[in-house]
């Protein structure tokens, strides 16, 4: 069900209250360093016999050419192509330009590979319908990441931040003979958190991570931190909180909720972070 008109965003299926500006009203490439500004690229017309045509503006960057990134326009024959943005990218790669580079694996929204910026918002290319996009659809890589090629961002740092929250079960008690038991309510505490596919749509969209991403862990890593803090089988809550309680690592989140707005799995990283802050408060008295 699509919820509208909410002040506090709880999930990405809530339509924004006000959409006065589709994007912040400054010129494109404003303040961008000369080597990163995006230039007009090539036009790749549709095949001659195509009738239903849709244009895609796609960000291209090739580190082997000493050139700026560019925006290529591809015309896609919709009658020859599947319904999703990822289908269009695959169609382009196999029919038009084999050098177009992007990550994908599962094509069903569970691997997190195909996260990219579609019409200004981060989403998975495989779960976004082409018919829901603008014309031309604008496809950029995830924001605020260094770009390896075309739509492939360098995720090294965000995965290192994920590693920092030690995302595994920690227990000093000797391992039980059988599985570790959990009450249904305790198991339910993981709902809305264990589903995270680490696509980093949220971290890439977080303004705090843009300005202080070297020290702020970002919503993806913090949602995972909460997923382990709230796991009744885990025994390391104290150590976990020690490592999180830091003006930058945790408290740099200002509850802007871009993360929750963009999560393509409908999760709420903003709430997870608020829960961590509440847990720290509880520990203090």
């Amino acid at each position, binding site marked *: 069900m699509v919820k509208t008109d909410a002040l506090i965003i709880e999930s990405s299926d809530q339509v924004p209250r006000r959409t006065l500006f589709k994007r912040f009203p400054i010129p494109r490439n404003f303040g961008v360093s000369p080597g990163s500004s995006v230039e007009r690229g090539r036009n790749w017309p549709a095949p001659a016999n195509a009738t239903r045509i849709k244009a895609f503006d796609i960000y291209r960057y090739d580190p082997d050419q000493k050139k700026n990134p560019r925006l290529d326009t591809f015309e896609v024959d919709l009658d020859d192509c599947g319904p999703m943005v990822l289908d269009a990218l695959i169609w382009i790669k196999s029919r038009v330009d084999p050098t177009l580079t992007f990550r994908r694996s599962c094509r069903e929204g569970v691997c997190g590979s195909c996260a990219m910026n579609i019409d200004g918002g981060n989403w998975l290319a495989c779960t976004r319908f082409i018919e829901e996009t603008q014309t031309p659809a604008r496809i950029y890589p995830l924001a605020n990441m*260094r770009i390896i090629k075309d739509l492939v961002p360098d995720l*090294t*740092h965000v*995965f*290192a*931040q994920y*590693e*920092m929250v030690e995302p595994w079960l920690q227990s000093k008690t000797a391992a039980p003979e059988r599985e570790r038991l959990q009450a249904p309510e305790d198991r339910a505490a993981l709902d809305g958190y264990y589903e995270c596919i680490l696509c980093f749509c949220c971290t890439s969209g977080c303004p*705090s991570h843009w*300005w*202080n*991403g*070297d*020290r702020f862990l970002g919503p993806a890593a913090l949602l995972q931190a909460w997923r382990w803090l709230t796991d009744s089988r885990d025994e390391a809550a104290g150590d976990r909180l*020690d*490592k*999180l*309680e*830091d*003006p*930058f*690592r*945790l*408290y*740099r989140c*200002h509850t802007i909720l871009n993360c929750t707005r963009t999560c393509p799995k409908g999760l709420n990283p903003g709430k997870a972070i608020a829960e961590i*802050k509440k847990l*720290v*408060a509880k520990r*203090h008295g």
Partner: protein
Amino acid sequence: MDRYRFLSPLSRASGLGSAKAGFTHWWAERITAIALVPLTVWFAASLIAHSGSDYQAFIAWAGAPVTTVLMILLLLGLFWHMALGLQVVIEDYVHGEAKLWALLAMRFLCVGLPIVGILAALSIAFGKSAPL
């Protein structure tokens, strides 16, 4: 992030480790925000109530013990909250050496201005207010 240094990804991400602080700041921000709600309402309502008063009547109100205490609390809450908030804004957007100077200037104002206000409130209370 200093991308030209040869640091392992984990070393970049862990930096200098956790400061094990930040809760007090976050909590004080919330406490002062809550305290400011009734104090601001009281202040605004009082000003409106006295919009028709002459100078003498206003000074009599401003010098009353309850007014003085509430005024001092308002000044403390307001500037404390402001200092905490501005600190976050500066830490967010100002990087490098400028950050230290911006924080120092901000703190100077956020400590100095409420002292001015408190002295003013006290001098009215003790009948030392300057004549118009």
